[in-house]
């Protein structure tokens, strides 16, 4: 137990509490019987799995934000005329009337006045500075609204409402809001900015989120089963077996306990399949056509979907075929992608291959319609 606790931090690791952000990735769970207590009861906090979602999204900028970011790249800050006012940052629509604004853009700044501010004592890796800085609402000279942006100051004592700040541009500019930052006017230095080429029409945003998901007890038992080379389902009403179990019987609407866990066979029947010809997209790792099968384990009431088949020739594969799961060696089994989601459940990366048992096929009219 103690060893497990040391190996797997609690739901909120100390690193997160200190505000140092998600840099510290939890170690992935591995086959380790110490995850189970002596009584076989899994404590939820002992099975946290860390997920990182990260994708470079793009933004089509449109007629106002496009020129605004193009100007930032070129060392200028633009606002938009809206009636008698100048809005900065500029907007596509009049915030009062909803009318579409003509893209009548005017240069503002580079100096302005801090109207409000807050001090960021412990920046995260995504902040504009890695040392303490201020976020401030800056009303740029010539603008009637404030822009929230970063002010690089020597310390909190250097910040005050009403102080004058001036824009500074970064050496490397990409046409993003991060191309600029502010400093107290006295700290500002003159810059010579060479304009870039072309218009900035699409921006890229690497958005990432790292979070820890702690498995529910039934999901932890299911994951532990996979690490142990077993398929653990749960018996629900009508003597049907769900795999993975949901921890409750969705049809009878009652909670299930560990007593309802059932170890299923490692043999099953092919219910359906598809042959995937990989299309190219970001993150795609497949290059050759491969089989993805729907397999119902013997005794189970629902099938395992999207099971990779690499060892059986495409033209020999068929519905009704009998297969057996051959598990990977214990040390190589991983359940990183097993989570509490039952809609698209995973069996982790524990099966080496599905091997034909050599038994006669199940007749097509004897197959269950459920998938």
């Amino acid at each position, binding site marked *: 137990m103690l060893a497990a606790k040391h190996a797997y931090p609690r739901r909120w690791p100390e690193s997160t509490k200190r505000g140092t952000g998600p840099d510290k990735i939890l170690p992935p769970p591995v086959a380790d019987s110490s995850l189970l207590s002596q009584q076989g009861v899994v404590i939820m906090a002992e099975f946290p799995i860390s997920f990182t979602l990260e*994708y470079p999204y793009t933004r089509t900028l449109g007629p106002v934000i496009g020129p605004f970011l193009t100007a930032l790249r070129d060392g200028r800050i633009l606002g938009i005329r809206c009636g008698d006012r100048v809005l900065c940052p500029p907007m596509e*629509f009049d915030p009062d009337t909803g009318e579409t604004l003509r893209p009548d853009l005017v240069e503002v700044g580079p100096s302005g006045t801090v109207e409000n501010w807050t001090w960021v004592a412990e920046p995260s890796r995504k902040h504009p500075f890695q040392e303490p800085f201020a976020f401030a609402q800056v009303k740029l000279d010539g603008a009637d609204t404030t822009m929230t942006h970063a002010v690089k100051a020597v310390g909190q004592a250097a910040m005050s409402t009403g102080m004058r700040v001036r824009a500074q541009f970064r050496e490397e500019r990409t046409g993003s809001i991060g191309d600029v930052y502010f400093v107290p006017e006295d700290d500002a230095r003159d810059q010579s900015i060479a304009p870039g080429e072309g218009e900035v029409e699409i921006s890229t945003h690497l958005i990432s989120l790292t979070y820890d998901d702690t498995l529910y007890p039934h999901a932890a038992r299911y994951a532990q089963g996979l690490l142990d080379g077993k398929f653990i389902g749960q018996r629900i009403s009508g003597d*049907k077996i769900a795999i993975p179990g949901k921890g409750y019987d969705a*049809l009878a609407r009652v909670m299930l306990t560990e007593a309802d866990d059932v170890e299923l066979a490692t043999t099953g029947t092919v219910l359906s399949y598809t042959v995937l010809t990989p299309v190219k997209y970001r*993150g*795609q790792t497949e290059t050759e056509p491969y089989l*993805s099968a729907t397999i119902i384990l013997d005794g189970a009431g629902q099938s395992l979907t999207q099971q990779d088949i690499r060892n059986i020739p495409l033209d020999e594969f068929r519905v009704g075929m009998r297969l057996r799961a051959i598990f990977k060696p214990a040390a190589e089994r991983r359940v990183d992608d097993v989570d509490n989601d039952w809609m698209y459940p995973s069996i982790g990366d524990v099966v080496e291959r599905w091997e034909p048992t050599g038994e006669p096929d199940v007749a097509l009219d004897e197959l269950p319609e*459920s*998938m």
Partner: protein
Amino acid sequence: MAERSAVVGIGQTKYDRCLPVSMDGLVRQAALRALEDADLTFADIDAIVIGKAPDALEGVIMPELSLCDALCAVGKPIHRVHTAGSVGGSTAISASTLIESGMYNTVLTVAYEKQSDGNFMWALSGGRSGGAGAGGSFAPWIRNYMRRSGAPEHIGWKVAAKDRRNGAKNPYAHVSQADITIEAVKESPMIWDPIHFLEVCPSSDGAAAMVITNAAGAKRAPRPPAWVIAHAKRTEFGVFPGRDPVKPVAGMECARALFKKAGITDPRRQIDCAELYVPFSWFEPMWLEGHLICPEGEGWRMVDSGATEIGGDFPVNMSGGVLCSNPIGASGMLRLLEPANQVRGTAGDYQVEGARVALGQAYGGPSNYFAMWIVSSEPNPTFE
């Protein structure tokens, strides 16, 4: 219901791989076109109902808040609906329900997707790269349908060719292939066996909007209203022992409730045309059966006989459907919006002559979310 609801304004953007407008500009364009069609302005709108597919598609969390300016929603109630791929359908139904409840007089409903800003494949696999994609999930079910129904493989090709030809009549469609042949579909690369490349929906940017109002509003409208006769939504778990994803119980229950409310007893005869959510060609016969429009095993025969062509006795996806335009969040709304176009007589080159009663259907998730409505040119159509 306290009030009747009717569609009096329809607005769409062009659907395309990447539209050179901001997300704000996109929803704005569809909204303004719907208002113009209804001869109204944002000032006439009491509430806004907005829908889109999961936020992970573009990585903008709760976009309904940042889109308030573009939709002139500041100071007004704005509701966000989220039911995966069926969301556009559920969104329109929610707007309709707000009118029927008597809460508001006129509601603007908008659905959109800016797919070019993100990656559908990645977002739908929960942010896991290397997933099999939607086709990888649906292909085994299609194979099961083919086995159970005995449908010959050319049925899928036929649906795809029909929808792409229909799309060529729709100026908003993303994909239009007026001269496509069944042979071309058959010869296109196999992506998720048995699904060929030309049997797969595109990935589109686009937005759709409707103005939905009560009887008094319908009376004032400058163009014919599409009366909402009945609507229904049903959901089931995506996975449970005994579930049949080829013919989900929720899909049948949704259709039963819908037909009952509308007074329809023989859907194939009493409904003039339908827009069904068909992202992969085979879903046309699957939904014809799965929504009890025809008996089991008859869906593919309807396709084979040409019954679902424009000019057939039960035209399906006259606009080209999801196979021609797939701005996911808006795709479901389009399935409900196009039947309104049909009964208003505003469907242009893909108008079904004399369409009086039309069905719209959207589904989402692993075939477990359903949203449907029936609209008519008459407020109280009777059926024989």
